[in-house]
């Protein structure tokens, strides 16, 4: 695939710029505009049943992962159970 008047690298960079910045577990990440929470989890290789999502300090019910779109600047926390006493 080629881009008229630009190199492939420029095209990739432009695509990245088209995405949006979000905070995931305290780190900035770029993801595609319009991606749902379910889509983001899939991208990260996480099973929806194995994580709890907190979005801007509010817990997001699992049933809504497929419907809710990630917004630019969202702060997402993806947590799960680990060993503890």
């Amino acid at each position, binding site marked *: 695939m080629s881009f008229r008047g630009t190199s492939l690298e420029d095209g990739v960079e432009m695509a990245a710029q088209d995405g949006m910045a979000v905070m995931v577990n305290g780190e900035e990440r770029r993801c595609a505009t319009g991606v749902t929470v379910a889509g983001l989890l899939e991208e990260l290789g996480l099973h929806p049943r194995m994580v709890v999502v907190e979005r801007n300090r509010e817990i997001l019910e699992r049933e809504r992962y497929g419907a809710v779109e990630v917004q630019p600047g969202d702060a997402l926390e993806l947590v799960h159970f680990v060993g503890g*006493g």
Partner: protein
Amino acid sequence: MGQGTQNGDRPLEIAGRTFRSRLILGTGKYRSNEDMVRAFAAADVEMVTVAVRRVDLDRTKEEGILYHLDPEQVFLLPNTAGCYTAEEAVRYARLGRAAGISDWVKLEVIGDQTTLLPDVAATLEAAGTLVAEGFKVLAYTNDDLITALRLEDAGCAAVMPLASPIGSGLGLVNPYFIREIKRRLSCPVIVDAGVGTASDACLTMEQGVDGILMNTAVAEADDAPRMALAMKLAVVAGREAFLAGRMPRREVAVPSSPRAGMLA
């Protein structure tokens, strides 16, 4: 152990749920997940604690505990370990509940990094909030009777005073206050933290408390499954000894064999 009751003892009941085992184990610090699973089988535990933490996004092979434990087989009790404020503990409790397993939480609000002793004011505050939100709160606290009474008044499902600091293995440092807490509270009293070996567990149960929660003593033993078995037996032994009612302590010897019938 057989069916729930033995020799007239009632099963442990917390918030309407009954447990035949009075031993609750943590899931932290095992050498391997296999070791942990074998320890739980050896101890025959029905309830284990888990912590809520961020998923490690860079190491997606790092699996959550749910890949090793079946919530249908063992009841998971999410904790708020590592929280230093009431607000933080409430946030963790809500996240734990959102996992969809239960509305139970082991509430823990730490007040000091060196001793990991609880911040009792913050614990009481968080307990009030969580009880109002419908949580079944099992509250970790120190061996202070007044705090224990207030946690019960706040609606906690169980009050869990420490034997000694978390992970210390120092055993039961204040049997008198633990007995007093058990005597004065109506809700279950589970001693949480500080047990180091089987004799500690046995001595703790001999005070009449309803159960023990421990983690490090099993996880850090050279042979965790074997220590888990020892703890199971110690908890049963201590409970039975309590129910049996011990003989009085005397500072004199009393012979066990009759004086009568001795040869002239």
